């Protein structure tokens, strides 16, 4: 499971960074989204990967991390997802505004001459 998760994070982050460096604004926004997925998985992974361990307290089980999944990274991921979602939406608006004002979807708003 560790291998699958780490390969997933690596592939997502790698494609995200590649797309982030591309000249079209749409590629950049997809790159940012992929990068934020990779980071979200990474935060989740930093709480240690556990199978079959609940993050919610049960009164019959002692309250130590040996019996539970760490709930804090899950809460952090939730916050990070909300923030990155909002920022992507905001960036989309700016992207459309730039497209409308300059008539080009190049990140510098001007096409590089051949």
């Amino acid at each position, binding site marked *: 499971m560790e291998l699958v998760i780490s390969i997933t994070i690596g592939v997502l982050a790698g494609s995200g960074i590649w797309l*982030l460096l591309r000249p079209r*604004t749409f590629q*950049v926004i997809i790159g*940012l989204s992929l*990068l*934020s997925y990779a*980071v979200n998985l*990474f*935060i989740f992974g*930093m*709480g*240690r990967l556990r199978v079959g361990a609940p993050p919610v307290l049960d009164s019959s089980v002692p309250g130590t991390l040996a019996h539970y999944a760490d709930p*804090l*990274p899950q809460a*952090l991921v939730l*916050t*990070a997802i909300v*923030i*990155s979602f*909002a*920022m992507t939406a*905001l*960036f989309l608006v*700016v*992207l459309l*505004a*730039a497209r409308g*004002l*300059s008539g080009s979807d190049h*990140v*510098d*708003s001007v096409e590089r001459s051949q």
Partner: protein
Amino acid sequence: MTFADQLIIAPILIPLLAGGLMLLLDGRRREAIAAIGILSTLALLAVAIVLLVTSMEEDPARTLRVYLLGNWSASFGIVLVVDRLAALMLLLTATLGCAALLFALASWHRAGSYFHPLFQFLLMGLNGAFLTGDLFNLFVFFEVLLAASYGLALHGSGRARVSASLHYIVINLAASTLILIGVSLIYGTAGTLNMAALGERIPVLDPSERRLFDIGTSILGIAFLVKAAAWPLGFWLPTLYAAASAPVAALFAIMTKVGFYVILRLGSITTEASGGETMLFAEGWLFTIGIATMCFAAIGMLSSQDMGRLAGYNVLVSSGTMLAAIGLGGTGMTSAALFYLVSSTLTVAAFFLLVELVERGRTPADDVLAVTLEAYGAEEEEVDEENEVGIAIPAIMAVLGVAFLACALLLAGLPPLSGFIAKFALISNLLEQHWLGGGGIVSVQGWILLFVILISGLATVVAVTRAGMRSFWTFTERELPTIRGVELGAVALLLFLCVALTVQAGPVMRFMQVTAHGLELGRPYIGAVQSQPGNGLRQKERTP
């Protein structure tokens, strides 16, 4: 908990409530919205002054105050911490907020919708970032201030602003992912995100975990260098600040200082715990980056034709100077860097406002003319000089010229204003630390910093003088800018504060020294946060 202790959260709550209230009001009721904005910003200023005065008291329990959110103890909840440094930054933010708002009220706040709510949310994010004692909460406040700053950078719209903001947003989103990676690495190894608890955990970290932890702090440090616009991560800054509307650019002058503040704060907590060496960067890196930033900014200043870009490069100079100064280390350098921070932030903000006033009457054709005159010489002009006898510099240009002169002196660090005192303090500390302190000779790094500070000052003089001559001395037939009293008032307020900083340099410098000394000892900060009683499992364990 007394009422005075509850004030700690006020710098976050006041702008949040004010901004929320503005959104509820009908957008056409501009006067009501502006009135709320003024009241809220003034209230922030008052709270910041109270917090600063309290933090100056002798009693150690009053200088470092901890606010537990929801009364959860530090190991479970989020804490806010006010010490001298945080109170100083809050006061600086509120002061800049007042000046920028005053300036905006003349005309700029009508250039687009939602100026006032965004302005309040930016203040809220800044104050929160200065107050919080939790790394993840710091990330959240950073996002709040960045989201508001995206909106404000776009205020007034236009192609240049949208294009510059596009780059700014992408870079900051990428930096935010770096913060998240750093924060999660730190949590994964140290098991806490509370800054004070981190200070306690570092010495007892397992060596195998320690390496991963160091990587985490370094990634976090890089993310904050992006915010501080250090070279080579700060290319976005001059374009964005030049494109942004003047009051927004003036308030943005403090945003690079947030990055610097976090580096200073995290450095202070982790340095003591790890026994002397700073954790964020390997030895000497911060210094090198600071010097590179200063050199880049000096070259940038000399090459900029546009006054807005010139002001933007000045932000980079101040950022670089502070990074290099704290990179060199020592209480004296930190206190001088803090004095420089206050002086340069106020000056750069005043300069941004002033540039807009000077450029107001200007048409694009004027710029072309000025450049051509410079390239081909201005002889042709002198022909009709005889006819021009009797035309004095108009009164408004004279007033602006005097303000411009003051700004030039402050930026370049020439006597007699506070810019000079700040640079003098930096250089004298540099020499004193090594000569009188016992080192014998000034280190190579010390000499490098000394020369780069002086050279960047020279570059500033050349660049600003050239811009000033082009605006005030060259004769161009252009309409005089129409300027309202409040706009001049905002510039005058900032410049007056710089003059006050010069006159009261002694007491201010002593305050900075005490602040820097407090930072040197990370221990009181850690102790105050950890000992604060609150709800949580610890208390339950104690009760039978």
